[in-house]
């Protein structure tokens, strides 16, 4: 009985106008998106290569001058463009992708906008995640809003239920048919997109890519089932199909448009943190206090003589300044991370945001990537400092008074470029990605179960006449 319900419904859905229109639009958007992505990715990769080679040249130049200059000069690490952007770019245009550091400290993060056009309005990229969150969710809601109330209006609901099929089984059959129709709607588009990308030659077929694509498809299915449960819930919430439609459209609009605004609202009003002027004035006050307490001669400098005694005082003063600023700023950064994470959690009432979170984790991009790089760079910075100090210790011409900003009292020997430790980003491993994605996946499953459960309860009291 269940199989019959499911099969009839799927056949009906496939022949319906809604599915056909969605199918066509989806194919168009997937094709346009994939073709445009190929060009964009090639451009982005070329730009990044030029930028990296320029950074390499600068490092070589500094290595040729002396090793201290290499250590104290603030370097920028810019994240590379990721190949999996065609699946989901996790809003990487808006997540920080540039971290400033030197051997002594990791200073700040920022968004390097040097490839974007500030004159264009902000927009989304046409990747799989975007198509799913907007188009597929809309189409699935349209498919499911009249599953129950529409049948009731057509008077066919009472006919079905007058058979020996229980309400629960019937509802479950409807649910499965919607999920399967939804998945069937998306699959061809995904395949077309994959084919275009494979033909273009930019994809490297390996385990990681297979994992990402499979993972995304699993997440997409879970997402479709959550939206189907939502649509079914709207359908059961009212006796008229039009009202069901209105409720589902409103919920969709709220989830899509409202939840980002709600997150910002929550961040500004509920999870307040200090603003940048307050932090800067705290840093300035602490610096002034340190400078006042600094012993006489802490500011003398003799560029030619590293062993000038005052350089020891200077090094200590500069180090104290750096540490006090570091302490205040690190605390502020952690507050920023906390504020962002709490605000994100507010958006998890929307399955669209949940899909975004899961794909972000599976792709290893977006916010998880930024946090990983932030902490990995801290580790690298410590290793770099240790390496530098070891080299400096071997130099008899250095007084070993470590100064984080200036080349006055540490080793001035040159170093071969090949011997310098360079930071290379380690992408999140598959187990790490799964662990990060797990909460989102569980929430999606809970979402579907909960909504379906409520729908069953409501349907059991539904007046089918």
């Amino acid at each position, binding site marked *: 009985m269940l199989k019959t319900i499911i099969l009839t419904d799927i056949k009906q859905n496939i022949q319906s106008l809604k599915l056909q229109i969605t199918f066509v639009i989806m194919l168009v958007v997937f094709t346009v998106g994939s073709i445009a992505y190929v060009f964009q990715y090639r451009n982005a990769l070329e730009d990044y290569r030029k930028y990296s080679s320029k950074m390499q040249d600068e490092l070589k130049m500094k290595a040729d001058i002396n090793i201290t200059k290499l250590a104290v000069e603030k370097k920028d690490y810019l994240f590379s463009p990721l190949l999996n952007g065609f699946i989901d770019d996790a809003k990487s245009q808006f997540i920080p992708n540039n971290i400033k550091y030197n051997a002594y400290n990791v200073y700040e993060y920022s968004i390097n906008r040097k*490839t974007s056009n500030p004159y264009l309005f902000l927009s989304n990229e046409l990747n799989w995640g975007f198509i799913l969150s907007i188009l597929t969710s809309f189409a699935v809601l349209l498919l499911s809003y009249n599953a129950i109330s529409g049948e009731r209006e057509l008077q066919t609901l009472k006919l079905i239920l007058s058979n020996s099929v229980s309400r629960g089984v019937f509802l479950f059959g409807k649910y499965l048919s919607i999920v399967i129709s939804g998945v069937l709607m998306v699959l061809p588009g995904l395949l077309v997109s994959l084919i275009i990308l494979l033909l273009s030659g930019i994809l490297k077929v390996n385990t990681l890519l297979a994992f990402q694509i499979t993972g995304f498809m699993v997440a997409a299915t879970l997402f479709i089932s959550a939206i189907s449960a939502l649509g079914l819930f709207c359908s059961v919430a009212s006796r008229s199909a039009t009202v069901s439609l209105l409720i589902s459209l409103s919920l969709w609009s709220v989830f899509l448009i409202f939840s980002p605004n709600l997150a910002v609202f929550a961040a500004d009003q509920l999870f307040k943190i200090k*603003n*940048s002027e307050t932090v800067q004035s705290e840093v300035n006050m602490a610096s002034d206090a340190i400078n006042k307490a600094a012993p006489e001669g802490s500011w003398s400098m003799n560029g030619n003589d590293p062993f000038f005694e005052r350089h020891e005082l200077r090094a200590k003063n500069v180090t104290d300044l750096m540490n006090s600023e570091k302490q205040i700023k690190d605390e502020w950064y952690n507050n920023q991370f906390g504020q962002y994470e709490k605000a994100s959690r507010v958006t998890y009432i929307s399955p669209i945001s949940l899909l975004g979170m899961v794909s972000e984790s599976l792709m290893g991009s977006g916010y998880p990537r930024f946090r990983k790089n932030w902490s990995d760079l801290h580790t690298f910075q410590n290793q770099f400092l240790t390496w530098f100090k070891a080299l400096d210790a071997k130099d008899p011409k250095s007084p070993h008074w470590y100064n984080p900003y200036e080349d006055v009292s540490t080793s001035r020997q040159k170093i071969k470029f090949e011997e310098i430790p360079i930071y290379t980003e380690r992408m999140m491993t598959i187990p790490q990605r799964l662990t990060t994605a797990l909460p989102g996946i569980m929430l999606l499953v809970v979402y579907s179960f909960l909504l379906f459960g409520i729908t069953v309860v409501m349907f059991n009291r539904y007046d089918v006449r």
Partner: protein
Amino acid sequence: MIWHIAKKELLLNLISARFILALLLCLLLIPVTMIVSVDSFNNQYRTYQVAKDGAEKEQNSWRVYSAVRPTIVLPPQPLSVFCQGISGQMGHSVKIKLGEKPMLGEGQTNGRDNPLLLSFFSIDFVHIVAILISLLALIFSYDLFSGEKENGTLKLMLSNSIGKSTVIAGKITGVFLTLIPILLLCYLISVLIILFTPQISFSASEWFAVFILFLSSFLFMASFVGMGILVSVKSRSSFNGIVISLFLWLWFLFLWPNIAIYFAQSNVKIGMLDQLQQSMDQYDQELYKKRDEIAQKLPELYQYWNANGGDDGYIELSGSPLPTMDNNRRLMELFEPIRIEYADKKWALQQEYLDKLENQEKIARYLSFMSPSELFGHISSMICGTGSGSYFELLNQTRIYRDVLIQYFRDNKIFSSFIYFTPQPERSFFKTYDDLLNVVTGGICKNRQELKTWMDAHNGSWSVIWTVPYPEGSYSTYPPLDLSALPKFTRYKLGIDKSLPAIFTEAGTLLIIFILLFSLIYNACIKYDVR
């Protein structure tokens, strides 16, 4: 008769679930959006105040003209709470340099202290209104004719002695009468929130702009009503009608804008700003070679007493003897005009980059003519002064100001004056460095040779023999410059009057769409099968 039909439509709609849901959505979404926008504006304003105070303080500290490089700080647009446009992406300060023309502004204006929060696409008032009003327009008009036909009441209505045109006009008026209160409510809520925010005060021209914004929202709404009615008339059932209308809504509001911009971005390759910077740096290297060529011919250029230097030719000397001072003066006289010349060379590269940015933006804008919601978005950004046109013009004005400033420097022969690089009056210059040492050490060291001998013997600084104070040698003796005659940047008001022609083009297109739709509707209605 038209009024009767319209009134009937209105009253039926007012008690329907659609209307109540519409009101609820408005009451929920608009206040939150406005509060977020107002908060963001307050943050921007605070940042602006800090930057402006900083720029003023800096201006009051300049002692020499080589430091005079004014920073123009742009205030945030009050109307950006309605339509953010690109105001969150443009920098808010522009530094006027001699060696480089300003291309894009610097600094953050996104009004968020936590850069991570930028990844939440917060939507501004204009976009929420566009989404809501278009959705509601479609929802109220999709079953205008097909619904009545299915109910069987259409043929009853037309069997009376009223013409088809009256019915059509009446029904359409009814839909408008239902939607206008909702639109008014949205604007009313936002206006109330603005009035109750003390930090934002609109001038008369800004309230006028809000009114024009309301009118364009009405035009936008009308185009979607037209679309909904057309679909209603052409489709076989109201169910099909709503499906097609909703997909049209999805396409025009969510899919087409992203496709258009994505298309524009992939078509015009821009390259990284870093590469432009690299090419400009090469020009700078050439420039400094030229400086060295001139400097080589001038003796005793670097016999500084006290020297300070910095960006864009900032150099401040004090206490140095006459040969040094005079040769530096001659260097500045010859070199600064060359620096300005090189700025023009660099500008050629910058212009190329800007042209690419503009081309991308143009493609995106022309593509947007195909979607009423994009047209509305562009019109709103032009009305609120946050569109690309306003910012292009603004940066142009900063370049014109730079030319005015350079002309002022030239007219007053500032490059050839001592005040360009030293606040010390000419009469207090020492004749030679040796004279200076002689006086300052009280005769202990009569020249540079003796000083070197002394330092080698005493292995350290010679502050012990500096017995005679030399206040003219330190910067703090001198007051900051009196810059009251310096040309000031006249505040460029990003206003509606500057972009009226462009607004008319885009609004005209909306109007044409509207007229087209309604003539199609009229034709289709006349041929409509009412059975």
